[in-house]
């Protein structure tokens, strides 16, 4: 299925679900708290994708945005979604210009049935007739040592209460759903898997194609993601320390904001000359346009993560036509399918083998592989995410 056809089919499905919602005289309320993050990665990206998809098919009033106990002006959120960051939305809320009054919880029956969607941790519970929240991963429960304690507390304080107050538990992968079932006994019938989507502004692909000069550009491999222990970037360092010749054939670009815990300081001494020589590059956090350029121009991406609820960077890589060499951990194979070359996330030699295999495949298959990557990624749209959630919520309406 081509990219265009997939998107159209998903949009049609979302429109059908939106029509069902309206026919049941129901309105949707989307918690915008993740959008307040100034730099959107991870959960804010999911909230934005969902919000954008819903805003395209539901008019203001049928779709409402809220923060805690207050409604937030539709246009202020729409502006933030266009800008793809939370800076201006923060300012408007702080100045009181985005406030649209209280949540209409106390007026029983007025305005039809209310359905609440929380993209992550709930800051208010049991405020809507039907509500759901999205669980992105259980890493704060099962791998707490990869997180700052504050983050663990934030998620753990809400975990059981959120599940108990949900009519529907949304997960972004089957692996995350299975974690909820395996650790906390969540009833599988109360869950739905709604995979993340990926979308780039239309001009990005053209922009990247015009900028890239494959004949003259030096090949590089991209490692995309926040530098935190769970992302396991240190495995790439281990691989390079064992096989420094890789630095002669490729530059290694580690893009992503600085994270937390010891991983930030994990570059071995032996690789510091490669940093000085520009063979290893740390551009830090990059905006969407630069991210797309980096993705599209890379020979392949490396994603050694030890644990994911989904693995959005894998999908982003494929959507830019760039194959990914990824760990087989947790949800990642659900996202990468047959377009990734997989390795054991504890094995630097395994990663090296998988990288070698993928580079050979890239040479052999060329543009065919790039097209396959894009086609695979096209199956993941925010319209599909929204339609999947909405369908289950409408079914639950009394």
């Amino acid at each position, binding site marked *: 299925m081509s990219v265009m056809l997939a998107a159209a089919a998903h949009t049609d499905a979302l429109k059908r679900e939106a029509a069902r919602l309206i026919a049941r005289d129901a309105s949707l309320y989307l918690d915008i708290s993740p959008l307040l993050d100034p730099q959107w990665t991870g959960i804010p990206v999911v909230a934005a994708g969902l919000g954008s998809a819903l805003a395209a098919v539901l008019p203001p009033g049928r779709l409402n945005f809220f923060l805690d106990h207050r409604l937030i002006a539709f246009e202020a959120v729409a502006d933030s979604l266009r800008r793809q960051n939370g800076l201006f939305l923060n300012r408007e809320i702080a100045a009181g210009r985005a406030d649209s009054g209280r949540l209409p919880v106390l007026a029983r029956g007025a305005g039809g049935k209310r359905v609440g969607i929380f993209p992550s941790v709930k800051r208010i519970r049991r405020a809507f007739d039907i509500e759901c929240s999205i669980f992105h991963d259980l890493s704060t*429960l*099962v*791998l*707490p*040592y990869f997180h700052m*304690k504050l983050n*663990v*507390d934030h998620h*753990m*304080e*809400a*975990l*059981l*209460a959120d599940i108990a107050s949900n009519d529907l538990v949304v997960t972004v992968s*089957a*692996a995350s759903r*299975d*974690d909820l*079932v*395996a*650790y*906390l*006994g969540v009833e*599988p019938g109360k869950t739905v898997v709604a995979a993340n989507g990926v979308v780039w502004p239309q001009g990005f692909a053209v922009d990247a194609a015009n900028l890239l000069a494959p004949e003259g550009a030096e090949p590089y491999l991209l490692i995309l993601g926040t530098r935190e222990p769970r992302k396991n970037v*240190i495995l790439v360092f281990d691989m390079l320390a064992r096989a420094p010749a890789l630095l002669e054939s490729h530059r290694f670009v580690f893009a992503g904001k600085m994270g937390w815990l*010891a991983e930030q300081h994990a570059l071995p001494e032996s690789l510091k000359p490669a940093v000085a020589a520009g063979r290893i590059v740390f551009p830090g956090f990059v905006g969407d346009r630069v991210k797309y350029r980096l993705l599209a121009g890379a020979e392949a991406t490396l994603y050694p993560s*030890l*644990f994911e609820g989904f693995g959005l960077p894998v999908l982003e890589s494929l959507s830019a036509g760039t194959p990914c060499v990824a760990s*087989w*951990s*947790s*949800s990642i*194979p*659900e996202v990468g399918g047959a377009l990734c070359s997989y390795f*054991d*996330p*504890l*094995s*630097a*030699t*395994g990663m090296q083998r998988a990288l070698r295999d993928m580079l050979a495949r890239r040479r052999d298959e060329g543009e065919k592989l790039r097209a396959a990557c894009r086609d695979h990624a096209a199956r993941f749209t925010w319209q599909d995410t929204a339609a999947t959630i909405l369908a289950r919520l409408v079914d639950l309406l009394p």
Partner: protein
Amino acid sequence: MNAKGGCLSLLPIRETLAAAVGRGVSWMQGLGSWGDASAIVLSCPGPWRRHESAVVPVARASLTQVLLGSESQMLAFVAAAQAMEGRLFHTPVPEIFAGEGNLVAACRAAGLRDAGGSGVVHLRFGGVRAARVIKGARNAAVIAEAASAAPLTASHHPFASGTILPETMQLVFTYGQQTVGPRGTLGREIPVRPLPPAFQTADLASVAAGGTGKGGREALDIVTLGEFQADLWAAGKIRSSAGDARLRRAGKGAPAAVLVPWNLDHPGSIVPALLERLVRLRDGQEDGPEIILLPFNYFGPTGIIRSLVVRLRDAASDPERTLAQTFLARVTQLAGMPKLRQLSRVAWVDGNDPEAWWTLQRLAAVGVRGILIDPGGGSGGVARLPADEPLWVEADTRCGALTFAARMPSPRRLPDLLDMTAAQARVAEPDVAAPAASRAARPARRGRVRAG
């Protein structure tokens, strides 16, 4: 129900176990009948970065402390379960498997010859709060904790109480009568089965019988608190001239020393408070034995050891000297036991620790005399010092802020502890072997577990 919604009946396992025990047949044979399983994967908490693949044959597991704690519980089981060799594997990261598919593939990569049979059994060793499952496998917890270490305070964290296990945990094996298993998952009770006493020290029999001998220096890590570096400790790359010097002096006029096991997975441990009290009371003088901490249940760089370093630095009148005279040691292979015994044959065991009984058993099996710092109610053959002062331990843990009620020796009781230590050291004979029960257990293979 497993993660995929399928029922995994435990009935054949229970029946076989009961029948085996009832007939007086080796319990091992009973345990073997879990296994229509194609592989039995063992896990316990620990620093994952020491390992070079997600699944290894259990004999190649890279462990940090084989004498005490969850790693030793796993090794004791392995020594008792050698009939299953070839199907026993270790994973440091059970959390990352999405199901049986990639687990079986990883086992094959690690050398599993026949991946037939009906699936994988996962045995999880260690504390209840740290229990993990492998989705799609048959999961059982093997627990050596007594139930006395529950926190006083409530928490939002699902597993903070230390009595709740993951939902798909199907069975609990307990080590010893002292162990009281958890009550169940959030939604149901879990059957509990005790393991035979012989399991507890099965791996130590050959070590104990071997007396002191000349153990491998590389199998015992020792550093001063002043030298401690979390990343090196986690990676297992310990090089310490002070530690080497301390070992060379052992038994040759070095100051008397006492081993102090420290359960890093018990947030209510009194060990940090006890050491701080000693440091303050000593005020730079050398009253009493040198302290050699034996931390166990080490999850990785969590800041717990560093916090102790900071605490003692703040408490000491001469911080550098204090930190240079307080040691951290760990036995990474059983071959390191003779070296440990050269350092000291007496240990202070925190009776507030839910694994205290396990620690005492293991120390006794290798000829180290434990003095139990007893919070109350205990009886039996072990030397005891009643802990007479109530202590509230408030700990900021990964399960939230937890408060524990503990008891420790008051300042006026500490001289008694020092006297008892000296007396036990005099009694300890240099070549004490293990109790008969341990000798009777099947000998473990020595030196098969390597340090990272």
